[in-house]
């Protein structure tokens, strides 16, 4: 039988049982829709996380103090304060792959301004910190080398802090007290938004020296923030930093480094591997529902074959070969699943867009996934349609004709 006629017969039989066909397709529709929507959401989330990490700074490498061992007991990260301002100077002088390096002194405390107070993190940084972090000032100025040298009591506020302490009035030029030390506000940072690291705008930046000598013991810095020359030399830069710092710390070859390096690429890689696994997991769950939809198709096709026993008998009697009947029922099953697949794609795209619109999720619609889900639904049709079709083809024409 020609394909045109086969399609006509299949179409007729699907139309004849509209409701049943639709319910059968529903399994495939939900399956394909779920695959497309969930993978879109998964990939969207993973891209958003990556872009958030990128927003932490450009080609960022962080150097953190390492862990110490005391009689076999490991005391955890940061348990030795191994980094000093000297290290920062050495890195700046000796390295070729580093664009900028800034010391980073972490402190915290209560901040008071005109009758309001706020607890936030106070970070001592170098004047080049904004370049490293890819950050802009909203108003005012940032501190300079001169203010570092003089350990000036000046502060630049993050957007959140500025809003909390000064609301609508201009904080620049105003005076605040950090741990009872008076500071002059000289600038306000642009809003950077929150990331998975928390609210990046809930911060006050002060000169390194000020933080180091006025707020901590004045010996060690918490971190070194480094911006590499380009993204391509991240690994070389890390090796170089390692070499320079080991020399600066007078470490012997067999000694482990007493500091750790974290690069932004490394974090992105790690996070992407997690979100990637999440996407695969979501896709797999959705694929299971597609499989269940396939079983639905098989169920209905079996019913349909039994119901149409007489028709099969007539077709066989007037000269259809078993193969003709097989192909006829197979085409019907595949048509059901492919139409379900097409509706499923539309449904999935709508669902993903709905999630993006109403739940503010970022989505990435991948045409390749749609194509894959569509072909998979076709394959489901062939696979689950084959058994009922073969049952139809193997019927004895005499028995089938006698069926009422």
């Amino acid at each position, binding site marked *: 039988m020609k394909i045109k006629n086969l399609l006509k017969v299949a179409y007729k039989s699907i139309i004849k049982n509209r409701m049943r066909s639709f319910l059968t397709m529903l399994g495939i529709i939900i399956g394909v829709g779920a695959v497309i929507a969930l993978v879109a959401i998964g990939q969207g989330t993973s891209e958003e996380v990556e872009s958030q990490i990128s927003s932490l700074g450009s080609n960022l490498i962080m150097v953190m103090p390492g862990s110490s061992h005391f009689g076999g007991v490991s005391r955890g990260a940061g348990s030795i304060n191994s980094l000093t301002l000297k290290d920062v100077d050495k890195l700046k002088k000796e390295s070729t792959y580093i664009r900028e390096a800034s010391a980073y002194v972490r402190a915290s405390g209560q901040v008071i301004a005109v009758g309001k107070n706020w607890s936030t993190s106070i970070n001592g940084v170098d004047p080049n910190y904004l370049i490293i972090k890819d950050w802009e000032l909203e108003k005012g100025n940032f501190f300079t080398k001169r203010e570092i040298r003089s350990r000036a009591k000046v502060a630049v506020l993050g957007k959140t802090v500025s809003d909390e302490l000064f609301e609508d009035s201009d904080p620049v030029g105003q005076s605040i007290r950090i741990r009872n030390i008076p500071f002059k506000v000289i600038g306000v940072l642009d809003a950077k938004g929150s990331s998975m690291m928390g609210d990046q705008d809930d911060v006050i930046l002060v000169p390194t020296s000020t933080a180091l000598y006025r707020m901590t013991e004045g010996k060690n810095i918490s971190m070194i923030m480094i911006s590499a020359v380009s993204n391509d030399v991240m690994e070389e830069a890390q090796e170089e930093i390692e070499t320079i710092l080991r020399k600066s710390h007078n470490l012997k070859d067999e000694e482990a480094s007493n500091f750790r390096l974290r690069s932004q690429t490394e974090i992105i890689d790690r996070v992407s591997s997690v979100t990637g696994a999440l996407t695969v997991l979501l896709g797999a769950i959705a694929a299971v529902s597609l499989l269940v939809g396939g079983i639905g198709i098989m169920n209905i096709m079996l019913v349909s074959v039994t119901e149409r026993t007489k028709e099969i*008998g007539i077709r066989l009697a007037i000269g*259809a*070969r078993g193969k003709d009947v097989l192909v006829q029922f197979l085409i019907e099953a595949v048509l059901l699943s492919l139409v379900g697949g097409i509706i499923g794609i539309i449904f999935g795209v709508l669902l993903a867009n709905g999630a993006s619109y109403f739940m503010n999720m970022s989505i990435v619609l991948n045409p390749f996934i749609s194509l894959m889900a569509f072909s998979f639904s076709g394959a489901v049709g062939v696979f689950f349609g084959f058994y009922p079709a073969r049952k139809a083809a193997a019927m004895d024409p005499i028995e089938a004709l006698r069926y009422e």
Partner: protein
Amino acid sequence: MEIIKIGKIKKTYIVGDVKVHALRKVDLTVKKGEFVSVMGSSGSGKSTLMNLIGCLDTPTSGTYILDGEKIDELKKPQLSDIRNQKIGFVFQGFNLLPRTNALENVELPLLYDRRGRVKDPSEKAKQALDRVGLLDRMDHEPTQLSGGQQQRVALARALVNEPSIILADEPTGNLDSRTSIEMMKILQELNSQGITILLVTHEEDIACYSSRIVRLRDGIKIEDKVLTEIRSAAKDLEEMGAIPVELNGNGYSTEV
């Protein structure tokens, strides 16, 4: 020329532990242009013989040659092709495809014809419908047709692929007596055109319109006689004061 040549054909069914001999060594030869009635009460084996001749079933032993082709050696797909190309079926229950109009029903055998002989199945199907006088009803579905009309559609379907023989299994079983005679009239007309017909029936009134009667009992042929005097269905209808069945096309008229 012999269309059907059956030699010592046997068919045994096994039902549970019991062997049922449906046919015991039956011989039958049908020549081209004959109109044979196979008669017998239920259980006589006439349906089994019909299924064997119709290539729907294969014999336990014996030989069967249909239009020069040895059937007893063929496999399922070849049997399908024989049914498609050499045999036209007319069943008691009409067996038209539901929700499918008359034209599409008649077309069906052409769509399964692997020889691809017919370029325009629809045109060919229209010709066949014309031969049974139902061209004006080609868009009607079976439920919109009377029993007699449905059986004529089935007959058109049987004719469409120009088979060697038409097998009619109790074609009048579901029809009233008047429509039955009308049906027999059409069959007689087709037979007069040279089409070989094998009719299975248990009604003497119907068998008398054929040219030869073969009688079976308990799987054995007990009678095989050629009728010297054949009743004319057309004449009977006239006597009944009939509204004649309108036939048109192909030089058909109500008088034969």
